[in-house]
């Protein structure tokens, strides 16, 4: 992707990288705290929750709230206090004395403090056919795409809570949902597992991995391998949903910060990282519970820590 090497003149107090709930919450706190604040977002403000038609567990909304609406309101709130937003992708983060330089597709921004709130993305299987058929039968979001597989047979790869709740969602549209997991036992909590087992059109292929995704113009089948015996077989499906976990978006940091074994940023209680003046919030952090309210909480804490750092 094209990197713009133009230095932006304006010096900011805080640059927030990522416009999901963590970044938006940090933006509200920083702007309201009279810090000159810039929010960088590479795609759409709101992050992954914009795909949720109804969020039922964000505190304060007893009848639920639409994910897009919730995050749009957060953005408006930050705008009210003078937030600047630039639509650009961060490509590197460097230090220059106490200044932080954020390289992006729109230029290089300078700030005294940075809050990294880039979130995570769905982990890929890394198998043949996966990229070719993305959008043509391969999906990473059941809530987004289930409607297109009405009365069809679909596979879902994964065994955790997220995977099973996606399977349950899919079962309302698809004729058959076949859950494929590489172990003997699913990782999801017992309550969630029971619900899935009790659903008539959800089937299970345990001890199995998907080794290839095949089809003509669209997905028509997946190749399976039994983990124990090595036996291979084909499963005819119209779609395959991949729900094997999330990968934090930390590649652009290029080793600047210590990351855990999953690539997540390690922080202290105040969202501070190993580098003074750099903070992290939301799904990019180690042990994130991947909930909007937690991201928003992290964002607020990071902002307060940043403010403290800037005034010391």
């Amino acid at each position, binding site marked *: 992707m094209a990197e713009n090497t133009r230095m932006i003149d304006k010096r900011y107090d805080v640059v927030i990288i990522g416009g999901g709930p963590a970044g938006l919450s940090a933006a509200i706190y920083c702007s309201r705290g009279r810090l000159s604040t810039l929010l960088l977002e590479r*795609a759409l403000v709101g992050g992954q929750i914009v795909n949720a038609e109804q969020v039922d567990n964000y505190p304060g909304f007893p009848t639920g709230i639409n994910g897009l609406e919730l995050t749009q309101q957060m953005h408006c709130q930050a705008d009210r206090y003078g937030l600047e937003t630039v*639509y650009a992708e961060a490509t590197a983060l460097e230090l220059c004395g106490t200044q932080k330089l954020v390289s992006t597709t729109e230029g290089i921004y300078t700030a005294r403090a940075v809050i990294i709130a880039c979130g995570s993305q769905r982990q890929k299987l890394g198998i043949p056919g996966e990229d070719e058929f993305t959008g043509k039968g391969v999906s990473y979001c059941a809530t987004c795409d289930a409607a297109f597989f009405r009365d069809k047979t679909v596979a879902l790869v994964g065994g955790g809570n997220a995977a099973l709740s996606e399977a349950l969602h899919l079962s309302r549209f698809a004729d058959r949902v076949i859950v494929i997991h590489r172990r003997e036992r699913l990782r999801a909590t017992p309550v969630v597992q029971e619900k899935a087992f009790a659903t008539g059109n959800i089937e299970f292929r345990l001890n199995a991995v998907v080794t290839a995704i095949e089809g003509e113009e669209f997905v028509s089948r997946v190749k399976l391998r039994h983990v124990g015996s090595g036996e291979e077989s084909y499963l005819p499906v119209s779609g395959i949903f991949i729900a094997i976990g999330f990968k934090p978006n930390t590649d652009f940091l290029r080793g600047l910060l210590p990351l855990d074994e999953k690539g997540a940023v390690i922080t202290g209680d105040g969202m501070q990282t190993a580098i003074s003046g750099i903070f992290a919030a939301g799904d990019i952090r180690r042990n994130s519970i991947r909930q909007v309210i937690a991201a928003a909480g992290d964002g607020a804490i990071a902002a307060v820590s940043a403010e403290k750092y800037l005034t010391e």
Partner: protein
Amino acid sequence: MSKPVNIKEDNFDKIVTKATTPVLVDFWAPWCGPCLMVAPVVDQLAAEYEGKIAFGKVNVDECPQIAGKYGVMSIPSLIIFKGGVPVANIVGFRPKEQLKKSLDAVLG
């Protein structure tokens, strides 16, 4: 000023298949957050490319057959038609500048 036309089964032929200019068709649904975010961008592009490219929208809940015919399995999907045939397919939200590049490539 030009706004995207609501496309259904009965006017698809006239607006897309028989169009003399390229046509961008925005496949969307009311429950799709990213679709609602790309809609104002498509509106702006419709005005900016008036006369050069036509713009239309297909609600996939109302017209599943059109969506199925063009293999739409994920929304938003912006399909650019030229001579009644798809020549580009952009799946997922994209910022305005990226969409302009795709439109300019079709005109080019």
